[in-house]
């Protein structure tokens, strides 16, 4: 299936310095091409919405951006410097934090141990300072995500509800944020109030110069907080547009109908 680029791609003026830049990214899983020639830039202090239907390639893109999955072809730039091998330790060193859709927590470990897994607070010999870790966990759970029902930082993640577990994943990402926060469907299991707290938090981070990529099905959530939207369809980028130049209706048309939807929507608008 081939989908043409929109005939007149909207101009996207860079907000500030480019942070992460993907160029011509291709990803094959066996014979299946799940990403085909995808290029875009995330700037510093910017919230970008990554939208698209199921199977559009959003999650694969997230995995490539965070270095968990290698790309088949393409180039990855971080602050104008090309990374040779994009691995998770490399992106972590640069300050990329990701909340994965399947929330990537260990159910048999406590909240504290999950938050600090692989990044433990230790003494010189590598022994963990558990009290300190518990204290920090309590602090970030209290300050970052308003979530009901968590009793203690010592609770096992396996005993939490889906929304609570997601809140822990978010708290972890937020605690270790440095430059770029990637959130893959973060609001799908959250209650209304926790969702709003999270979206507000993204805006607050943006004020502090931290960029976010918000992957979501919920166009209303995306529209509220994102400066720019990238719409994927069958592994291709079909639309990249600033908030000022689009509407929820156009984004909906793009997500649901692909490039044809964008065309139809634009024609409809110009006729009206």
């Amino acid at each position, binding site marked *: 299936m081939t989908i043409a680029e929109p005939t007149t791609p909207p101009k996207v003026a860079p907000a500030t310095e480019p942070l992460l830049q993907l160029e011509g990214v291709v990803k094959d899983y066996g014979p299946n091409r799940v990403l085909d020639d995808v290029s875009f830039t995330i700037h510093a202090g910017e919230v970008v919405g990554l939208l698209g239907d199921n199977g559009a390639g959003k999650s694969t893109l997230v995995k490539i951006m*965070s270095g*968990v999955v290698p790309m088949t072809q393409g180039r990855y730039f971080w602050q104008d410097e090309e990374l040779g091998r994009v691995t*998770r*330790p490399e992106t*972590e060193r640069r300050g990329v934090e*990701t909340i*994965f859709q*399947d929330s*990537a*927590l*260990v*159910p*048999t*470990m*406590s909240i504290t*141990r*999950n938050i*600090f*897994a*692989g*990044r*433990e607070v*230790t003494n010189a*010999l*590598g*022994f*963990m300072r*558990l009290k300190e870790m518990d204290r920090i966990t*309590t*602090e970030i*759970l*209290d300050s970052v995500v*308003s979530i*009901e029902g*968590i*009793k*203690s*930082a*010592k*609770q*096992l993640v*396996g*005993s939490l509800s889906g929304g609570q577990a997601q809140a822990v994943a978010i708290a972890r990402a937020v605690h270790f944020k440095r430059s770029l926060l990637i959130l893959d469907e973060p609001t799908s299991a959250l209650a*209304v*109030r926790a*969702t*709003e*707290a999270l*979206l*507000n938090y993204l*805006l*607050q981070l*943006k*004020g502090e110069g931290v960029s976010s990529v918000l992957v979501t099905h919920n166009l209303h959530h995306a*529209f*509220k*907080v994102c400066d720019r939207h990238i719409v994927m369809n069958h592994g291709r980028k079909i639309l990249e547009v600033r*908030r*000022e130049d689009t*509407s929820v209706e156009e984004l909906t048309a793009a997500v649901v109908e692909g490039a044809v939807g964008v065309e139809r929507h634009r024609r409809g608008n110009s006729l009206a």
Partner: protein
Amino acid sequence: MTETTHKPEGSPPRLDMDEPTQVRRRLADNAPTTLAGQVRENLFYLRGRGALEIGIIFAVLLVVYALLGARGGFPFFTESNLSGVITQNVPVLALLAIGVGVLMVAGEFDLSIGFSIAFSGIVFIKVANEHGWLLGLVAALAASVGAALVNGLITVYTRIPSFIATLGMGFVWKGASILVNGVSPAILIPDAQTGAFEKIFTGDFGFFQSPLLWMCAVGVVAWGMLHRHRLGNKIYAVGGNASAAKAVSIKPNLVKLQAFAFLGVMVGLSAVLIAARTTTMQPTGTENYTLLAVAAAVVGGCSLTGGRGTILGMIIGAAMIRCIDNGLVLGHAPGYYRESFLGVAIVAAAIFNKFMEGKAT
């Protein structure tokens, strides 16, 4: 949720948010302030982790033995029984249970240890007879760690389940034993058991023998590693959810290999302790240890799917199996049924642990 304008002005913009009707209770306020409260909280979060419940059951078992002993005719708490059976049998199984248990926490099995104990023990005897016990110990550890790492590399890089890989490799280690020594037992000559050797590996301190000291020392070190060191946190993460571990830059393969290597050290140590006590080792003499060690780890609360288990639980699991076995002997249980009784006890303990696992908070 209320709609916002599409072009918020000012920075940073805020979404409309309902004011909470009541002040939310903060997590920090839940922390207990009194000592009793802290103890209660810690106990609460020990529930279902592996050691607490089986520890209570073990304590009950010991009380029952004490009562039986007081009635007479059940000499469990006597110097000869404790020194002879308990402090020789329990520590070796406990070391193996710790090795197998840590590997199980990392999400893998090793079903070849029965044969690699023999291999390592035979290497120990061969080298010790020629070059003294210290070099023998080094050679035994090299053999057992090498065998465990080969098992680990096959498991990690071919991605076949470790119980199949190690089941097959067990026969390879058996073959290696026969290659080194032939089918007859290797005998440790008295000249090799000189100097500090006796004290370190077979020393008799009246109520207990030196293997018990080994168990305590290894237990403390392993506890520090698994429960307090960052390596332990990684082992739990890899066993509990390998892809989640990968997402935070933990290398599951490396961590699993470290767990295999740790098991190798435990196997080598156990092999030397067994060889020192019996002064002999044969290629097929230690097969039973494979399943006994796995059983001890499972009784002690290790999950078969990884990510769960405690060092204390593993030690208690080993002690439990040995004490039940010992109790059956002392109680004059018919010989042919002894193993069946033991099997029933092991399965019951495993079911109990599975049940308690669901209660974990």
